[in-house]
């Protein structure tokens, strides 16, 4: 056990880093939960966990596809990043189409008076009694950044697990590494979602400043999970 850990300690560190990246990335993704689904809050109308999991698992799939073709860590992380960014980008774009053309509300943020990126006026477009609606430019950009970080994190966890030397058959090994990555991913998607209390608009939201708390929590928890997963895979 100790020998396996010593030989793979770099991967323990990398898995922990990946988990922390996932945890941090969730703070960038504009999540509005149920209120957003009714166009009463800015963001995508679903829960943090579902969004983070969706982006992360897409990143995992794209990273896994790249892993078949190359051993280059940079390429695998880039594939994971781009996969998650596309997934979250498409989700936000379709969401905006529904908000604008289906519900008929302009994308507007209730947290800032002017969009930090486009400098467009926000507050006069926010409907009465709502916390904003749709995905203004700043939320969209923030979401893309979040997707990218989450994808890198998910891919890093998976790549590290797939790099551990072991004696398993390849199908068993891929399955085990994938389910470990999924488990670690879900834990790190839930922790930040408790930190932000379920809804956040993006990096311009005052709640964004709370990210260190989630990152510290994820650091400790992922480190434990990383040790457990490295011992499991390396020992087989």
């Amino acid at each position, binding site marked *: 056990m100790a020998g396996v850990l010593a030989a793979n300690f770099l991967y323990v560190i990398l898995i922990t880093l990946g988990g922390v990246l996932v945890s941090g990335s969730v703070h960038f993704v504009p999540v509005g939960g149920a209120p957003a689904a009714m166009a009463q809050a800015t963001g995508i109308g679903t829960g*943090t966990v579902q969004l983070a999991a969706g982006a992360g698992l897409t990143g995992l799939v794209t990273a896994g596809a790249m892993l078949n073709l190359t051993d280059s860590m940079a390429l695998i992380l880039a594939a994971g990043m781009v996969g998650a960014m596309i997934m979250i980008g498409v989700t936000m774009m379709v969401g905006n189409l529904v908000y604008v053309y289906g519900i008929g509300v302009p994308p507007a943020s209730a947290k800032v008076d002017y969009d930090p990126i486009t400098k467009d006026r926000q507050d006069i477009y926010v409907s009465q009694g709502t916390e904003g609606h749709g995905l203004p430019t700043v939320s969209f950009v923030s979401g893309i950044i979040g997707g990218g970080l989450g994808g890198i994190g998910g891919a890093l966890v998976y790549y590290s697990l797939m790099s551990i030397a072991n004696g398993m058959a390849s199908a*068993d090994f891929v399955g085990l590494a994938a389910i470990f990555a999924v488990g670690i991913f879900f834990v790190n998607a839930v*922790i930040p979602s408790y930190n932000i209390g379920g809804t956040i608009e993006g990096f311009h939201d005052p709640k964004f400043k709370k990210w260190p708390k989630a990152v510290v929590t994820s650091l400790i928890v992922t480190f434990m999970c990383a040790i457990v997963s490295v011992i499991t895979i390396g020992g087989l």
Partner: protein
Amino acid sequence: MSAGGSGGGASEAIPQNKLIAFGAAGGLIAIYLSYFMVQFAGPAFSFIGALGAICAIVWGSAAVRRVASYGLGTGVPSIGMLALGMGVVATMFGLAIGGIAGPIVAFVTAMVIGLVIGALANRVIGMGIPIMEQSTTEIAGAGTLAIVGLSTAMTGTFMFDVVLTEIVATGYIALIFIVAGIAILHPFNANLGPDEKQDRTLSTAFEKGAIAMIMAGIVSAVSAGASAAPTIVIGLAIWYVSFSQYNKYVVRDAYDVVGTGLLPKEEEESE
């Protein structure tokens, strides 16, 4: 989004300690009983593992109910996914290094991870839920026993070499992950509200556990160490009983249940 929490402890007809005993002891005993019965009496007894999973699912649902009634600040599903995320990591570790003690190692590992997450959630993130530590510990343990129980029902053993090739490599682990996760998070999520009652929520948990059992039965059809028919038949029986019971509780808790009949004809006056 609010989780529909009342901001306080949920009222309990059955104290949590009894449910812990039911879930932890019942789950572990059923998993081991299933394993030994399959060894000595044949694969027909693989269904006992799924009974253990149902015990764990009911316990997990009760723990979710307790903690989520304080209001998690986000949806109830989050804590179910957290449970299975912790659970799947701990299960793979426990079964891989534990051998015959695998389920116990997995159970203990999960509870340690759960305790750490609960402590950090209160101390670092500052969720301020008094029972957070206990609840995440319980939920992680319940999630783990549900995974091990369903795996045992699918393959007839919890030995890692078999679980690895028949559950993990085939991808059924993903099915277990989501089915057990939904079974643990859904009962309270479906029943929450001002008139939520513990017995109604737990009857939903039994019903969801039975659906998981039926699914495990279907998967076990292709496994040499487990037999599908008893698992599916017993699962259906449990589902029928628990769903009828749930229906009774719904009728009991509703203000009134009336048949609306067919749509009124145009000439009839609508009341």
